């Protein structure tokens, strides 16, 4: 039986202008889940509930088999958390932060911390206020990784990083995964990052979970079809197909249930399928959001 690193059951949290609306989600141990959603979708709220920064109003959250928020101290011993809006103490050095976290985390691995310092090219005596944004992100990640957590929860960790720093951060996350027991929940608006490291893709929008699927089969199920529709032909009603606007007789169809038989259905309706194209995760993300909001693609 697969053990779940995360299990959310009907998770709810209400704010005056936002509601997390009954999120159900599972992350098997050893997997990487990319959480994608527009600003204000509920990604950060979900992640904050998982580390006890925010308590849910309803539903249940189980992290590494333990209930949140009641078992939060035990949970947080095995979780590494870094968030885009989390800051370190500006007037203290990286070394001071390392010593502080080491005094709190019994599993702190100083050798691993030293290796991360080298890998991220960080000087331990440097004060946080003198670090660049990229260095601050790396220092935060170092503190989240050095106790070798079983679960990493990263909320937009690559925001504002230059390509080199982003590459280093993602590389470290890939290394973390070499230990198959480790799991990662990773949110980003950069779909390239998510596509690069995730096994499971989860879309969230306006507090609701839209999709959560294995990445390969998910990407494989989405296609864009370029169609030439003669004036005498009409577009067939096909499940999972959304038609976009087009010029003249040209139309674009997007589907999340692509099967080769679909092209035959168009041809039978007198429509020429000019091309069948795979879609990038970003295009799928946009299409999914439009679909869930009932906006034509």
């Amino acid at each position: 039986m697969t053990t779940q690193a995360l299990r959310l059951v009907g998770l709810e949290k209400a704010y005056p202008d936002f509601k997390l609306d009954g999120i159900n989600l599972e992350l098997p141990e050893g997997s990487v889940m990319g959480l994608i959603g527009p600003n204000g979708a509920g990604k950060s709220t979900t992640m904050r509930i998982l580390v006890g920064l925010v308590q849910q109003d309803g539903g249940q959250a189980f992290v590494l088999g333990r209930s949140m928020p009641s078992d939060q101290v035990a949970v947080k011993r095995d979780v590494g958390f870094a968030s885009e809006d989390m800051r370190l103490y500006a007037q203290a050095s990286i070394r001071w932060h390392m010593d502080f976290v080491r005094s709190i985390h019994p599993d702190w691995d100083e050798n691993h911390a030293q290796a991360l310092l080298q890998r991220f090219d960080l000087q331990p005596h440097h004060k946080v206020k003198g670090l660049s944004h990229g260095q601050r992100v790396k220092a935060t990640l170092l503190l989240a990784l050095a106790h070798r957590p079983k679960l990493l929860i990263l909320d937009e960790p690559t925001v504002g990083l230059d390509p080199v720093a982003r590459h280093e951060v993602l590389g470290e996350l890939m290394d973390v995964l070499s230990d198959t027991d480790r799991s990662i929940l990773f949110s980003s608006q950069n779909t390239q990052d998510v596509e690069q490291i995730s096994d499971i893709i989860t879309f969230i929008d306006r507090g609701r979970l839209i999709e959560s699927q294995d990445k390969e089969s998910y990407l494989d199920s989405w296609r864009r079809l370029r169609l030439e529709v003669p004036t005498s032909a009409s577009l067939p009603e096909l499940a999972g197909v959304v038609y976009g606007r087009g010029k003249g007789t040209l139309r674009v169809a997007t589907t999340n249930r692509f099967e080769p038989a679909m092209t035959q259905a168009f041809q039978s309706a007198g429509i020429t399928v000019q091309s069948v194209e795979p879609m990038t995760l970003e295009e799928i993300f946009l299409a999914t959001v439009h679909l869930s909001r009932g906006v034509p693609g």
Partner: protein
Amino acid sequence: MNVAMTKHLMLKDLYLHRYPILGLALALPVAGIAPALFGGETMWRQMGLTILNNSLIYLIFFLPIATIIMERRNHTLPFVMSLPVSYKEYTAAKLIGSLVVFGITCLLAVLALPAIVARSEQLARGVWPVLAVIIGVYVVLFVVTLGICLVTESFFWTMVLGLLSVVFAFLVFPLLESIPPHLIEHWTSERIVWDGEVIVVLGIEVLVSMAVIAGTFALQKRKKDFL
């Protein structure tokens, strides 16, 4: 509650704010030394009392704002609360840490006071019970400020309380004049008399402080967000 964890959190705050705390701690002996060095002239005694009073008022403002409000404003609270820390340990660390610093500072103030009153013709050892009541008021003010600060995490409400503290600071001297004559008689005496009224007031101060601390823990327990 993990005592070691609470200690680590307290030490963190002490380290991060060590310079202002040291500065304040030094200001109080200076308040006492100045009148002692320069004699019992009223001007030096007034200066000593002013430094003493302002330092305590500044401390009432400074500790809650620096250790609680700024932690939230600077977004360092999520960093702390993402570590294996419970709300109890966090609350205890803030309360105990601040009270320890305030206690040490008050102790320094108590040590400074004899020097201030030493050469006074109007004051003698008998003034101590009244001074204990006055220090008690500072403690209550501090505990209330700390509790409000922890529960509301609001700069506004902390400032409101801070303003009340300043008003109190200005009212200290008129308040002294309203003290019953039979208590004032003790001031010039070398004998310390713990009058019943003084003990009642001290008791109320202790009870109010304990109630505020208990209330702070109860409200913190109900809090749902640590951001």
